[in-house]
């Protein structure tokens, strides 16, 4: 009997982990749905959404331009040296445009926003939780989900596609800078191939990804902050671990979701 229990225990442990993970995903999904529905509860929180758009979107513009430019440049550089061996450098425009619009744009934008805005979202909501500010909202009959989470969800859903578009455009010019301006590829080839190879479905696919990433990132980051008090660690330590978890989990989930979405979109 004891042997049976010993043999079963690793299986049981795996089962428990899987169940926990599924439950956690379920909680995350409900958290998102609840926050999303509350966006439309009147009166519309226009001012708070505007503030969050400024924080998530506007303040990320510089970092997105910077990473977009260098990603495009490195793609141009690598692509040029790879293609030059086959004498098909003219395809550089397609390579850069497709990899940016389909993959690199949405994924890197999401990861940059996680690093810049996602972590601070978790820390801010987490600190509000441990200093009882969220309880204070509840005592004032203010729904903390509506007040804190809904504007962030709305703002992320608006900002992510726009930031992705910005990343793509800046990246394309980055590819042009390294491929044409520095390495001498004819710019007409570069832009003509970029234009002809990109289909509407690629752009729509990229935007679908960015919207899904927005939902994933904002949900994970807000959730980690909102429930920071349920951790075994208390106070500042709890907030720091929540912030780390938010960054790690949302990055991993972005990459997993990217793979799943790509499977469907291709």
């Amino acid at each position, binding site marked *: 009997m004891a042997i049976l229990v010993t043999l079963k225990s690793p299986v049981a442990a795996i089962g428990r982990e899987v169940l926990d993970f599924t439950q956690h995903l379920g909680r995350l999904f409900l958290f998102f749905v609840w926050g999303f529905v509350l966006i439309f509860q009147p*009166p519309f929180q226009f001012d708070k959404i505007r503030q969050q758009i400024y924080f998530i979107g506007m303040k990320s513009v510089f970092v997105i331009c910077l990473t977009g430019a260098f990603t495009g440049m490195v793609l141009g550089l690598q692509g040029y040296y790879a293609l030059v061996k086959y004498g098909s450098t003219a395809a550089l425009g397609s390579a850069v445009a497709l990899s940016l619009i389909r993959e690199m744009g949405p994924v890197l934008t999401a990861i940059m926003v996680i690093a810049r805005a996602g972590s601070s979202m978790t820390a*801010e909501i987490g*600190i*509000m939780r441990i*200093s*009882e*500010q969220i*309880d*204070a909202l*509840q*005592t*004032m*009959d*203010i729904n903390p989900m509506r*007040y804190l989470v809904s504007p962030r969800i709305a703002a992320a859903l608006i900002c992510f596609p726009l930031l992705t578009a910005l990343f793509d455009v800046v990246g394309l010019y980055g590819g042009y800078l390294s491929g044409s301006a520095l390495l001498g590829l004819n710019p007409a080839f570069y832009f003509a191939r970029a234009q002809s190879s990109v289909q509407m479905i690629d752009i729509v696919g990229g935007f679908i990804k960015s919207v899904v990433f927005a939902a994933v990132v904002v949900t994970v980051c807000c959730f980690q902050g909102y429930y920071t008090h349920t951790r075994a660690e208390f106070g500042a330590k709890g907030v720091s671990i929540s912030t780390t978890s938010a960054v790690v989990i949302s990055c991993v989930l972005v990459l997993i979701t990217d793979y799943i979405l790509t499977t469907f979109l291709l």
Partner: protein
Amino acid sequence: MTRSPLIQLRDVVKTLGANRVLDGVNLDIYRGEITAIIGKSGSGKSVLLKHIIGLHEPDGGAILFDGRLRAAMSPAERKALKKKFSYVFQDTALFDFLNVFENVALPLKERNALSPAEVSRRVRDKLHQLDLHDVELKYPAQLSGGMKKRVALARALVTDPEIVLFDEPTTGLDPIRKNAVHSMILDYQRRFGFTGVVVSHEIPDIFFISQRVAMLDEGRIVFEGGPEEIQEAVAPEVKNFIQGLESPRDDLTGIASQSIGQNRLLQEMSRLQRYQIPFSIVLLAMDNLEDVDRIAGHVVAQTVFKTFANHVTQSTYITDTCFRFDINKILVALPDTNEDQARDFCRKLARTMQSHALFGSIEAVKGFCYSVSAGVAQAKQGTGLDDLIAAAGQTQAVFYECRN
């Protein structure tokens, strides 16, 4: 006629983690009264308060409002009930990303029932009443502990709540500010008539402002009654707790605490009974301490009371006893003194007060009038302590007045 409680807790049980924090709490809170909840640290006082406002739901038992079970209320009724409450958190829980004005305005703004101009008017009124108008653009991180407490109080009172719950509102404050917050709570309770529940460690100061006291121990209410009853309670857990926390000296004034003073009075009584040694008492009251609150703020009012207590101490002999009797009263016991000699003591005290600046800058406020009254009584064979104090209260007459 028996009063019916506004809030009733019946056998409330709550387990947090492995701890059974509340283990069958029964408590009645009456309308228009301040109920103090005292108890050791970690005895579940804050958890109890959070059950009353609905931040925690009990694992067992029932919470009733006006005789109606909260668990049986519809969501709309619960929402309406929640609007009647305000909560002052132990660590203030001010929103650190909003300035003082925005913090106080938030509960009004989010209710969307008032125009922005009306919200602004009410907030400014409240900030002015709490002497916070010059810090309305500052953020909580830029304020002192006492100011944060006042902002939290302003935020709690701006919605004109029917029930205000205070979770250790004076923790970490110096004696003057602690007494200022207490007098503020009492002042606002008198003015707005809300029902207050105060969780506090401040013994005996909290007894001055509360009409009922409940003591929580090991998750149960071990005492419920008036503040004067708890001082006479014989249950060892209550007695030990009160005596353990009560300092022999009053924090604000430095004079003897109420229980020490009353013990001295009892000793004098027995000396009178046994050896026929007369003694008299003088009950001194700063009548319009509330006016000083309104003119110069609660902190100044408490400083004035402290200065007054110093003058009283200086006028007494080493054998006399003076102790804080109430939030604005000092009782002096004068051994070997008859009523006439006690009146001489009052005259001497009035002269001392006239020769010293008692009220500082507020004396210059135009139209400001201030008075201190005294009641004198000589103890007689066979009269009880309560009768003696009541007799002194009846002869209360103004003996010092300041008019501008």
